[in-house]
Every structure is written in structure tokens, then in C-alpha cells.
């Protein structure tokens, strides 16, 4: 294996490939920062470019594009509360308030360090355990998925604090309900489409997030008291005090491991990972906002690396992005799968190492940009609000090209503004929406497979364990009450 790794380093670090990964990072960051364009679109848009390269060069460039796009997404998530992809939603929970308080530079820097750390940890775990971890992906079946998704939903409601539990439950349910609009994931029935063709594919994620986070935030700023922009924007923001760094190191370490493990499971891995890591820090960590940015960023990057495990070891893509990457690999005549390690070690290790190189380059390229990016929040409110509105509308238009969607978006944004004004948290709404389809399809399959027999669960210890954890967390508030 050591030989394989050395071959990999040799392949990834030729001057030509380093140039390609740098180019990929830059292009990815730019595309990722644009409204509505996430890693999948970034990779799809770069495919024509990759054809002119040899397989390793092409894949290495794609790794750069991917990491760049993920970073670009966190930027808009922190600066203007507009997460472009589901996995950076949790970053905005603490990142955006930090930016509003004049710590935009610090929040971005922490996000960049945490992403780098998560990616590094992910790559290391992948290097050591690559093929043996594949077994985990195979143990997670429909029953485990539905139990895990239920756990994420239980956590967001129970951990909301005694006053916010019912409001959180209400917005979670609203999100789940919005997620049921469209074609039923199992039966194929049309639900809640009101006979409209526009709704038959469901509500796009970008639409909901741009409406309830970005647009609603612009509205909230418009009706709130005007605030004066605060904060400094210098390269000094990039330096994290040692004490804080030490604290965040621990946060990032546990989030990365958690993220990687959840990331191996195909599907919403990176998203679930970031939510879980955030919840975990809020419960057992110090609850600081810095930790709140670190945890989801480290977790989602480690998870994205984790999602390569099923791709490289089983030949089955674990996420939308790795599905597009699989397309690229196949286009080069490579066959990802257990044989890739043995038959084409230079490609296998080349990909893994290049993902790491992509990470390093991302950090080097983007850190100097941060003070300039952070200046966006220092714009006076009367300029910032119009820009956020335009960004949000463009984000939806560029993904769906539908005027109907814009109208729907305005409606949802107004609803979200009202809910927020009355103190309802909106994060559970987004979580419910993201998990709605995943929950339903896995639950349906699990129930069909088990034929409604509870004994089925006994044969599945992981699912049973997660369900028991669910029950324990539900009982937590009662226990706390009796204690106080």
C-alpha cells in the first residue's frame, strides 16, 4: 500500500497536475459562489474542459472544482445567509450571526480552516481504511436510514430548549409537508401539486432555501431597525488566537470523525453530518459561535471525502457529486470498484491524494481573498438588501428557469418572514424539507421489507440502537424537569 501511496503522490504532484488542481479550485470557487450553482453544477459545467486532459489530470482538476464549489457555497452561506447547497445550511446558523456582528472575516477564516481540517482528516481516514470501510456502507440499509433521519429530527426539536420545542416542531412539520409536494418517491403518485405541472417535480431545494433564508433575511432587515455595519476587515482576521484554536481543534477533530462515518452512507451524508455535528457541539461543546461554524464545516468536508468510499470501493456513487464524478471516470474508461485498487493503483491513489492536494490549494488560494469577501457585509443596508434580493432571485432562476418558481419563492419568503417575526425558528423547516423524501422512501421500504414485523428490527442491531437513542433523547426533557 505504501508503494501505492507513493505512486499516488508522484502522480498528483507533477507540475501539470498541480496547475490543473489550482485552476479547478479557482473555477470551482467562482462557480460555487454564484447563486444557485453548487458542486454538482460546477462539475457538470467543467466536464467539457476535463475531456482535453488525461484521466488523472482530469480527475484531479475535478477534485479541485468540487472543493472550490463547496467553499464558495459556505461563503454565501456565512455572508448573506444564502446557503447554496444543503450541506452548508448548518454553517449559516452561527456563521451568519457572526458576520452580522462584524466578525465576517473571522467566520470565513474559521470555515476555511475547518473545511481544510475536515478534508485532511477525511483524506487520512480514507488512506488508512479505504477499502475496509466499504463494509459500513453495506450495513446501512433502509431501516437504519429511516432511524437515523428520525434521530436528526428528534434532536432538532428536543434540543431546541423548552420554550422553543413546540415552535420547532411546527416548523419541522411545515418543512416535511413542503417536502411531500410532488411525485411520491415510492408509489409515483402526484401529491399536493394542485394540478400544476410546475409542482410535479416537487419544490426545488434552492428555491426553499433562498426564500426562507436569503430573501426572508433581506425582508427582516428591511422591516427591522437599521443597523450600522461594524467590524474590521483585515488580514489579521485570519489569525486565530491560540487558546481558541486549541478549543476549535478538538471540535474539528470529533466533527470530522463523526462526519466521515456519516458520509460513508450514501445519500444525504454530508447534510446529515453537518446537522449532527452542529447539534453535538451545541449539546456537549461550549456552545460558542466559533464552534458552531467549525463543527458543520469540518463534518461536511469529512463527509464529502467519506462519500468517495462507496464510489472507489464498490463503484457506486454515494452522493450526487460523486455520481457526476463516476460519469467522468467512466468517460475515461475507468471502472471504479474493488478492482480499481489492484488494477489501476496509480489512479486510485492519485484520486485520493489529489483530493488532498485540492484541499491544500483551496486553503492557499482562498485565505487571501477572505478580507475582500468579508467586505460585502460592510455595505450599507440600503445597498445590501437589494443585492441579497437579486442574488436570491437569480439563484432560483438560474437553476429552474421558471417564473412560476419566483412567485412561489416570494410567497414562501413572506410566510417565513412572518414566522420569524413571531419567534419561530426556521432551521427545522429546512431540515424537515431536506429529510422529508429520504425519510419517507426509506421508511416505506423498511416497512415493506419487514412486512410490518417488529422482529425484523431485532436482526438489525444498528437500526435498533439508533431507535433506542431516539427514545432516550425524547425522554431527556422529562428527566431534566424532574431534576430541576
Amino acid at each position, binding site marked *: 500500500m505504501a508503494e501505492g501511496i507513493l505512486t499516488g503522490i508522484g502522480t498528483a504532484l507533477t507540475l501539470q497536475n498541480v496547475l490543473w488542481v489550482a485552476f479547478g479550485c479557482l473555477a470551482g470557487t467562482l*462557480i460555487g459562489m*454564484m447563486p444557485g450553482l453548487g458542486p454538482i453544477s460546477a462539475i457538470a*459545467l467543467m466536464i467539457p474542459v476535463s475531456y482535453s486532459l488525461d484521466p488523472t489530470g482530469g480527475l484531479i482538476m475535478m477534485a479541485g472544482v468540487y472543493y472550490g464549489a463547496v467553499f464558495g457555497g459556505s461563503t454565501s452561506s456565512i455572508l448573506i445567509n444564502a446557503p447554496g447547497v444543503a450541506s452548508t445550511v448548518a454553517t449559516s446558523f452561527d456563521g451568519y450571526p457572526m458576520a452580522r456582528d462584524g466578525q465576517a472575516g473571522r467566520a470565513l477564516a474559521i470555515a476555511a480552516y475547518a473545511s481544510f481540517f475536515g478534508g485532511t482528516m477525511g483524506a487520512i481516514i480514507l488512506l488508512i481504511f479505504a477499502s475496509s470501510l466499504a463494509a459500513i456502507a453495506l450495513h446501512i440499509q433502509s431501516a437504519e436510514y429511516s432511524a437515523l433521519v428520525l434521530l436528526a429530527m428528534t434532536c432538532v426539536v428536543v434540543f431546541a430548549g423548552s420554550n422553543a420545542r*413546540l*415552535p420547532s*416542531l*411546527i416548523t419541522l*412539520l*411545515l418543512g*416535511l*409537508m413542503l417536502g*411531500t409536494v410532488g411525485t*411520491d418517491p*415510492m*408509489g*409515483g*403518485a*402526484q*401529491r*399536493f401539486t394542485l394540478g400544476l405541472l410546475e409542482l410535479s417535480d416537487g419544490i426545488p431545494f434552492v428555491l426553499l432555501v433562498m426564500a426562507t433564508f436569503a430573501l426572508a433575511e*433581506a*425582508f427582516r432587515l*428591511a*422591516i*427591522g431597525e437599521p443597523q450600522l455595519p461594524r467590524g474590521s476587515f483585515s488580514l489579521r482576521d485570519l489569525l486565530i488566537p491560540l487558546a481558541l484554536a486549541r478549543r476549535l481543534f478538538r471540535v474539528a477533530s470529533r466533527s470530522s470523525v463523526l462526519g466521515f462515518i456519516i458520509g460513508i452512507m450514501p445519500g444525504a451524508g454530508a447534510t446529515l453530518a453537518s446537522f449532527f455535528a452542529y447539534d453535538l457541539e451545541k449539546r456537549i461543546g461550549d456552545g460558542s459561535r466559533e464552534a458552531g461554524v467549525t463543527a458543520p464545516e469540518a463534518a461536511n468536508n469529512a463527509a464529502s471525502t467519506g462519500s468517495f468510499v462507496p464510489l472507489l470501493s464498490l463503484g457506486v456513487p454515494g452522493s450526487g457529486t460523486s455520481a457526476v464524478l463516476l460519469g467522468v471516470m467512466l468517460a475515461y474508461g475507468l471502472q471504479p470498484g474493488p478492482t480499481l485498487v489492484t488494477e489501476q493503483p496509480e489512479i486510485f491513489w492519485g484520486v485520493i491524494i489529489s483530493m488532498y492536494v485540492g484541499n491544500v490549494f483551496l486553503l492557499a488560494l482562498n485565505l487571501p481573498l477572505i478580507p475582500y469577501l468579508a467586505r460585502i457585509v460592510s455595505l*450599507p*443596508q*440600503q*445597498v445590501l*438588501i*437589494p*443585492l441579497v*434580493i*437579486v442574488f436570491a*432571485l*437569480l439563484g432560483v*432562476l*438560474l437553476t429552474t*428557469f*421558471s*417564473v412560476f418558481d*419566483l*412567485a412561489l419563492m*416570494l410567497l414562501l419568503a*413572506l410566510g417565513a*418572514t*412572518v*414566522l420569524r*417575526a*413571531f*419567534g419561530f425558528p426556521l432551521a427545522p423547516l429546512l431540515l424537515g424539507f431536506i429529510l422529508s423524501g429520504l*425519510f*419517507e422512501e426509506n*421508511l*416505506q421500504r423498511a*416497512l*415493506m421489507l419487514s*412486512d*410490518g414485523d417488529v422482529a425484523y428490527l431485532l436482526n438489525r442491531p444498528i437500526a435498533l440502537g439508533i431507535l433506542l437513542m431516539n427514545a432516550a433523547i425524547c425522554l431527556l426533557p422529562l428527566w431534566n424537569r424532574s431534576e430541576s
Partner: protein
Amino acid sequence: MSFRLLLLTLFAIGAAYLTLVGQIELDPWSAQDTINSRTLPQIYGALLCLAVLGLALGQRDRTGDMSHPSLHKLKPLFWLSALICVFILSLVWLNLWVALGGLLFGTLWTMGEKRLPVIVALCLAIPLIGFVLVEQVLQMTVPLS
């Protein structure tokens, strides 16, 4: 708008959702499944109604920013929504980037930016950057419908 009205609206949403659940057409072979296209929506709708009731009973005197909204504060919200509506309607017959310039102009003006050079610069620069990036660099075609 009072908190009570909001709760009433939420309850109505739950009830309307439950009514719509009844209209979902089930395919003939999955009607007997343990869980079909209607099951989870039924649960969600019922839970929402219950949670809203619980909130209504538990906390009668909840207040937020908007418990006594003044007209002055809601005005910008109204104007912004109106401008976005005009933008959406104008997309049917105007080029996206031109319409976007118009939207920027309107929103900047209503948000209180009165320096004309700033407004004009932004209204020209942002659509232009968008056009170059999206249609020229990324070669995406932006259709309008």
C-alpha cells in the same frame, strides 16, 4: 397581524393539507401497503394541527417583533414584494438582465439609497457582470417563460 391570527392560519394550513391528502390518487396495488402515499402526510397534517393547538393552549401571551406592527415598519416589506412582483411579471416580455437592472433600481430607491451615481453604477454593473459570467463564460442560455 396578531399571534392568534398566525396560529389560526397555521391550523388552517394543516386542515387544508389533510383535505388534500384525501385527494391523492393511489395506484391500485399499493392501497393495501402498510404505508402508502397518504400515510405520512396524514401523520404530518394531524401532528401540525395538534402542535398548533398545544401552542395556543400553552402560551397565550407570546409576543414577537410583529405583535404590534406599525404601518411604518411594514411599508418597506410591501414595496419590496410589489417590486419583486413587477420583476416577475416583466420577465415574460423583458430580457432578464434588463429586468434585473430595473429591479435593482427600484429596490435601491425604496431602501433609501438616493445617490444617483451609485444607483446607476450598480444597475448597470451587476446585470452586466451577471450576463458576462452566465451567458458568455459559462455558456448557459437563460430562457424566459
